[in-house]
């Protein structure tokens, strides 16, 4: 009897708690109360879990499909999670340092910044690459111009950043024909062989067009959190 009442009470408590989490709402230019924000998080989680099965798949690329697209696109793949996306150019500019800066953005607001094709920033992913020093010479050909020290700043610690410094050696692995969706480009394969302070090895690979100097494809380290990313220029 008593047990039954307790169970009933607990159930009522659960129902009330769930209902109030669901019904809770806030409006106006004030901070949202904690309980409401928690309710939103739980709802988002449920929705995400439900939506997972129906997640759209990336398209299969064909040259015919690419021909129909006008705006420049690169393909970005995050190796660790095997996620692929096609991103558009948000900004191209120069600053006081050598090299052309490009910022590429996904539809859901993740950006990748490059200087002469070398990764210098990531925003909107867990584990932001805040800034990086790269060996760009701005002399035409993209990709690394020399070996030497590389330095990356990542978001971390207590709302701060931490720095990773690598000693890199530039290796020219020679000419390599590169196939991107039914077109073969004559490229030169450059590799940065980098070692960290604790002896870890990081490899950055670049496939640079032998004539124009354009970077067609790369595989670059994006930090301990994101891992390696691969890029391919699919639409110029």
């Amino acid at each position, binding site marked *: 009897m008593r047990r039954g009442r307790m169970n009933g009470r607990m159930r009522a408590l659960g129902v009330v708690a769930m209902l109030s989490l669901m019904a809770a709402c806030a409006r106006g230019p004030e901070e949202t109360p904690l309980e409401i924000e928690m309710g939103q998080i739980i709802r988002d989680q449920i929705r995400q879990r439900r939506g997972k099965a129906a997640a759209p798949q990336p398209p299969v690329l064909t040259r015919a499909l690419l021909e129909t697209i006008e705006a420049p696109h690169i393909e970005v793949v995050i190796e660790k999670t095997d996620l692929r*996306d096609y991103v558009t150019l948000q900004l191209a500019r120069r600053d006081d340092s050598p090299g052309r800066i490009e910022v590429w953005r996904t539809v859901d607001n993740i950006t990748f910044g490059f200087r002469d094709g070398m990764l*210098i920033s990531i925003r909107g992913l867990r584990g932001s690459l805040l800034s990086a020093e790269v060996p760009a010479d701005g002399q035409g050909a993209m990709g690394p111009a020399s070996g030497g020290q590389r330095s990356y700043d990542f978001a971390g610690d207590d709302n701060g950043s931490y720095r990773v410094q690598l000693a890199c050696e530039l290796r020219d692995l020679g000419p390599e024909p590169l196939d991107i969706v039914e077109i073969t480009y004559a490229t030169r394969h450059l590799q940065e062989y980098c070692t960290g302070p604790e002896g870890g090895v990081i490899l950055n690979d670049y496939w640079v067009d032998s004539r124009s100097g354009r970077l067609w494809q790369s595989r670059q380290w994006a930090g301990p959190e994101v891992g390696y990313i691969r890029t391919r220029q699919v639409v110029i």
Partner: protein
Amino acid sequence: MIFPIPTLSGPNGGPRFYPSAKPVRILMALMLSTGLSALPQALLADESTPRGFAWPETPSLNFYGNPGVIDMPSAETMPDAQFATSVSSFGGITRMNLQVQALPWVSVAFRYTETQDRNLFNFGDFYDRNFDLRFRLWQEGRSRPAVAVGLQDLAGTGIYGGEYIVATKTITPEALPGQFKLSAGLGWGRLGSSGAVATLGNRSGFTPGDTGGELGVDRWFRGDVAPFAGIEWRHGRWGVKAEYSTDAYTQETQQSNVFERKSDFNFGVEYQASRQLRLGAYYLYGSEIGVSAQIQMNPRHPPTTMQVSAPTPVVPRSTWAQDEALWSEAWADSRGARVKARDLLAEALKQEGLILESVTLTGTRAEVRIRNTRYRSVTLAVGRAARAMSRTLPPSVETFRIVPMSGGLGVSAVELRRSDLEALEFSPQAGDALWAVTAVQDAGPVAADALWSEELYPAFATAISPYTSPSYFDPSVPFRLDVGVDLTASYSPAPGWRFAGAIRQRFLGNIADGRASSSRLPQVRTAVREYAQFGTTLNRLYAERRWRPGQNLYARATVGYFENMYGGLSGEVLWKPVNSRLGLGAELNYVRQRDFDQRLGFRDYDVLTGHASAYLELPKNYLMQVDAGRYLAGDIGATVSLTRTFNNGWRLGGFFTLTDVSAEDFGEGSFDKGITLTVPLGWLIGKPTRNAYGLTIRPVQRDGGQRVHVPGRLYGSVRAAHRKSLEEQRARFWE
């Protein structure tokens, strides 16, 4: 043209590049571990997620929540700032432990214990709260073991009182898998009660009926001494432990019949279920099965890394304003042009989750006041605002002044040059580079010709949200809880003015069933039970005015019903220069105790209470606060609190209050003391939010040394936007 259907995102447009972590589970576990809720969910954080900032190695804990074996301690030390909650139980003895590594070489612990059928002082089941202190004497070296000394249950009744000095050596034999940790030490008190080899002086006991609360200095390291030892083997996620215990459990096995102690040896197996959670099963004292669960967290290592939507990059004026005519300052003479600039800016800020309060525009200069309801990091909000300004304001504006606002008050001003923004965004070490050319100043008054946001004022906000109201350590039930719904509303007719209130409807709860309290003092805080008798209450209703009386000065005046127990008048003044680590404040309140039904009426008790406060930011992000003045019961004295703060919003602290009330009049505990804990929600879920769980735990709630809770005290919001905090988070400017 946009690429056809290359979307990997779910229907809600969530991040499509990354699998979601599991924040809800962590959330629930935290609520569980901090006693906020009893949601029975285990902590299973996603440990497959890579960590940029390496996670620290951490020792396993014993039944007291100390680094140790099973019932005996070891000399290991947790990583700095580690926060460990654990629960252990065997033979009818349950211990809930909270341990914090306050400094690299000092840790403190708070413990709540339940002993079934103990019958001490005729209580039946016996509940006790105790504090520990532990010091690392030296770290482990190549051949030298680590050595630690600890004071267990160092004050008050000393039921678990024991002192120890212990050494631990880690051995990794090549022939065997895993790692061995050998510990050996000497114990006094409880830890010297079995197998004693010597006696050092006389150990006095606790006097029944005493109010407790005093340090047991006269007991420490006195009486019988016994050597104990233990071994732990760790391999991957698994650990095996064995120990020789020197706790005779005299009180539990001889003075009462809690369990039977048949052996000196204990054994256990532990499993690391996730990065945070470790579970263990044990066989203790030859007769009892025991279990434990340990959750360890570190404020520096969020379970989910923060993910903030990417900002729009700065576009240099040289690329879009090449025409000389565009650089004219003439636009600033036209009110229409300035209003247009304001509206464009407001829109751009809105995209970043910020609210424009006002903007003052001249041909070359812009001061923007922003309200930030999204980001905990003020630096991040300032960075977003700067970018919004750079893409909306006419090219002639070169100086940006960004003023973060709190409650209608400008709290500081960050001044920078637009050309620096344009030049440095992609430079190496961009955060440091920009900060080097940025100035932080006092916000100063708003200019007379400032354009206020027409959308914002009068500002009206409402919320319906559930609430939980906990009550701790009633002698019969350790934890009581009320739950219900709050209807809150606020109205702000102009900057600095605010009318706010909350109506509370309780659905369920058991605080009303608590024990009536007695006190020799006026019952200023112990009438919790009486206040809990009513289901529908006016929780608060007040009018507040905040203003800046002068440079570095902040002021607040509040009138109304401040909290469920008190209403009245309150005034506060704070002096805190933006670049200073010291702040000084004064608060004066005239309050009356509210009727138990918490509607509009008052009871007979009124008091003039107020404090002079000093706030000092110490190295290592310690915050020291001293408040001296008159408390609610009319007692005069001072509160000292020391809090370790983190830029991400974590706060771990302790406080005590000494007043002219005698220990006898105060009652159990002798004086007011407690611990405070704040865990930011953003740290748990990895999304920007300003919310946090806050918790203040007192071993005993009495009436001496109590303060009124006035909403909107100044220091917290002011400090977060001052130089130290802004500068330490400079990396987030560009995030």
